């Protein structure tokens, strides 16, 4: 947690960016990009999540480094769960 106080203008900028990205992701889904549709949707979602985590949740300016370790560990765990499970399901079961 930090004593770093951001200007309200800064928060409004992040807010507008998040709203624009929401409209963009909804609009892009109607364009045929082939398999890239899913990739674009997930990249936009991740950018939005990063904006919220770094700025709204103050992780960018946190004084406690342990917080970052907790977050990275949690995301890494999720990555392991999804990737190793899919490595199995995507290669073993053929119908």
């Amino acid at each position: 947690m930090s004593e770093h106080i951001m200007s309200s203008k800064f928060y409004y900028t992040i807010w507008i960016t998040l709203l624009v990205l929401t409209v963009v992701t909804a609009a892009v889904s109607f364009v045929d990009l082939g398999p890239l549709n899913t990739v674009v949707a997930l990249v936009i979602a991740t950018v939005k999540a990063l904006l919220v985590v770094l700025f709204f949740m103050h992780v960018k300016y946190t004084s406690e480094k342990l917080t970052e370790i907790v977050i990275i560990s949690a995301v890494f765990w999720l990555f392991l769960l999804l990737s190793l499970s899919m490595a199995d399901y995507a290669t073993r079961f053929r119908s």
Partner: protein
Amino acid sequence: MSDSPIAVEQHGPELLHHFADPEQQRDAASLGMWMFLATEIMFFGGMFLAYLIYRFWYYNEFAAGSRSLDIWLGTINTAVLICSSLTVALGVRAAQLGQRKLLVILLLLTIVFGFAFLGIKGVEWYQKYEEHHIPGHSFNADDLVKAYPQIHIDPQHEQIYFSLYFAMTGLHALHMIIGLGLFIFLTYYAWKGRYTPKYYTPIEIGGLYWHFVDIVWIYLFPLLYLIDRKPLR
């Protein structure tokens, strides 16, 4: 109490006696909240895995189910949650600056956005009820089978999409309801003037929870609503 010679008893929420200084106390509270959020990622992670596997197996049914959701309401609800995250972030700032009235107003706005989200979600669920898209005995996917003759849709697999849709949005809505309870509690004590620039930890960590629930929705929106909206060939 003021006459007491025992120094240990003279502490308020600003600094409990087992912490060295207020910053250590704040860092500990924040880290504890992040630990809890890490367990929440694991909690939701299992559902995301189930979603991923079934989407991989039954892509056509997932795409058809996704098309049947109301993209306008979904997008508006995403915007409502983003607005609520803004009011929370500004609320934490108001607490840091000791602006009590502004803090109460921003917390109330957050609560209004939270209820708006749940209201819109309720409308969407009711639409699914009327369309017989709720898994169970009355489930019927004939409308989707007819609407997309180009793709093969198995009604049993369609039910899996809607099971996951209700489980994931339901679990998210449960988190919203808990968040609203928390924020009503925070608003009451903010009104009473409990939170000062020296002590606003509950606002900060309550905000962390609210933002986390927002992030879950940021992923649920494209995964449930935007699977395949492009024109069918």
